[in-house]
């Protein structure tokens, strides 16, 4: 059964507004952030109106309810990705989740050098000069810059898997790139710019065979397809709340329980401690060890509602729906002269991020004309500047889909590109 997009659209208040003098809003920028259904907005408001308090503090009834709501959210998110609740750490966003792992490596390395107390198995996170971090050339800056920084501070070496001309990882070189010095392989599940869905199991098995840990950037996969961390076999997974119909200000790190237990803290302060004296502190077990300060409780409640909303739709059906829109967009755009897809042209192992360039029209100018039609797309390098360089384009125009998009939206995109081509006189 396919999604009832009409019914879904009525859940999203923002879709009823118009833009640019009365135009229907054609929102094709969910890869940047998704809209929020009334169910998410209502859940946040209800929490704030009835149970607002600081979680994990206080003995009063509101504090109890807030703590329960926050921990129920953790359990729901865990279930959504096939994990145990204690393995989910709430962060500010996915970027912070990736940084949490990067700083665990850094902090373990710094503390080990000074013989400072560390969890028993923390040597898994201690880096030596010449150790290697392996990423790919299609990473979002959030899964690139933290590793550059980690390498600059520790003497580890950053390596990356290159890309083929058709937008896939060039895995032919994987055996050379993975060495006995590789400590972590961190890569994206679905590229935010190319749309490529990477073969997680293959890379993970080979990384594990070399003794490396694996971190998956799932920002563009968890909101759009069924994702089960156990089935994927990875060690860590990071994603954001606001791209999966949830609020901004909350992201998630999933980590295998034994690994989280061995990691030193990242951000320190209140609620992440076990004991504190003036001289030193000991730290709480995960996940609290990584959640210093009053957490984002209403956002967690909203994210819980978002996960429920997606589960009710069924992630299989969400994926199927977006797959159809992707196929329609690829075919429609490729039917236009002078339009080139950046990323896989083949709609297999591919998600709904469709990047393209149009001869003679810079993406910024194209985006402006589309915007005039009410079509909201992303233009630029999509925080994946090296990926743009790889394909020798300064920027692209990108359409991304979610549950509330329909065929009319894709038609509007294709018609808008054609109109821009006429406007700029390139056809």
């Amino acid at each position: 059964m396919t999604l009832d997009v009409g019914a879904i659209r009525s859940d999203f208040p923002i879709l009823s507004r118009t833009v640019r003098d009365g135009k229907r809003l054609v929102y094709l920028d969910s890869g940047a952030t998704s809209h929020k259904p009334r169910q998410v907005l209502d859940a946040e408001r209800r929490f704030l109106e009835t149970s607002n308090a600081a979680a994990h503090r206080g003995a009063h009834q509101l504090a109890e309810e807030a703590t329960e709501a926050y921990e129920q959210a953790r359990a729901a998110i865990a279930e959504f990705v096939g994990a145990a609740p204690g393995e989910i750490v709430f962060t500010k966003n996915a970027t912070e989740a990736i940084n949490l792992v990067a700083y665990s490596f850094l902090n373990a390395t710094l503390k080990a050098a000074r013989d400072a107390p560390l969890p028993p198995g923390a040597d898994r996170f201690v880096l030596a000069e010449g150790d290697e971090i392996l990423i790919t050339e299609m990473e979002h800056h959030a899964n690139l810059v933290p590793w550059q920084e980690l390498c600059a501070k520790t003497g580890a070496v950053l390596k990356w898997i290159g890309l083929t001309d058709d937008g896939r990882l060039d895995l032919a070189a994987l055996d050379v790139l993975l060495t006995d010095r590789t400590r972590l392989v961190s890569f994206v599940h679905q590229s935010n710019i190319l749309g490529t869905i990477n073969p997680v199991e293959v890379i993970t098995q080979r990384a594990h065979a070399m003794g490396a840990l694996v971190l998956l950037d799932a920002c563009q996969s968890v909101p759009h397809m069924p994702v089960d961390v156990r089935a994927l076999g990875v060690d860590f997974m990071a994603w954001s709340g606001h791209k999966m119909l949830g609020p901004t200000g909350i992201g998630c790190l999933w980590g295998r329980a034994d690994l989280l237990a061995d990691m030193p803290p990242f951000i320190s302060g209140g609620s992440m401690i076990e004991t504190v004296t003036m001289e030193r502190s000991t730290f709480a077990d995960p996940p609290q060890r990584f959640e210093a300060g009053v957490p984002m409780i209403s956002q967690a409640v909203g994210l819980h509602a978002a996960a429920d909303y997606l589960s009710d739709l069924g992630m299989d059906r969400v994926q199927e729906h977006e797959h159809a829109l992707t196929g329609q967009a690829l075919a429609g755009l490729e039917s236009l002269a002078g339009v080139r897809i950046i990323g896989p042209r083949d709609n297999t192992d591919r998600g709904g991020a469709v990047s393209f360039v149009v001869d003679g029209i810079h993406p910024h100018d194209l985006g402006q004309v589309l915007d005039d039609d009410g079509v909201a797309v992303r233009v630029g390098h999509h925080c994946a500047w090296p990926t743009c360089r790889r394909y020798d384009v300064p920027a692209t125009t990108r359409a991304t889909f979610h549950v509330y998009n329909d065929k009319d939206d894709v038609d509007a995109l294709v018609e808008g590109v054609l109109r821009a081509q006429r406007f700029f006189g390139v056809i």
Partner: protein
Amino acid sequence: MDVESMYQEVILDHYRNPHGRGLRDPFDAEVFHVNPTCGDEITLRVTLGDGDVIEDVSYWNQGCSISQASASVLFDEVVGKTVPEALATLDAFVELMHTKGQAEPDEDILGDLVAFSGVAKYPARVKCALLSWMAMRDAVENAQKEEPGHE
């Protein structure tokens, strides 16, 4: 459509046939400016002559029509002017860009830059229009620092 008011024919003409584009020697200072949100970039050189006259501005850039056209107009507007005159034009342009399209631009000071008044309605594009001009200001400052005779 509204967007037509932004893409004035003057802008599209400069975009299709940019004036003064290409890097030339000799020069007194060279700068590289980039708009990190979209990746537009420009390498810009200035050559100063006697009396702080801007003898040449040469540049190589990539970016949208607004940033490309703005660099072309910059070449037309500042070459042959003194540094204070060029900076006064820059100030007037910056002011125009921050009016959200409400201001009545002064054509005597702005020349072809008046065509950019529609850009001011789109805050995301203001940086595109100003990229080459900020590079010019930076390059002129560097040139003056490096050559005390021009102080």
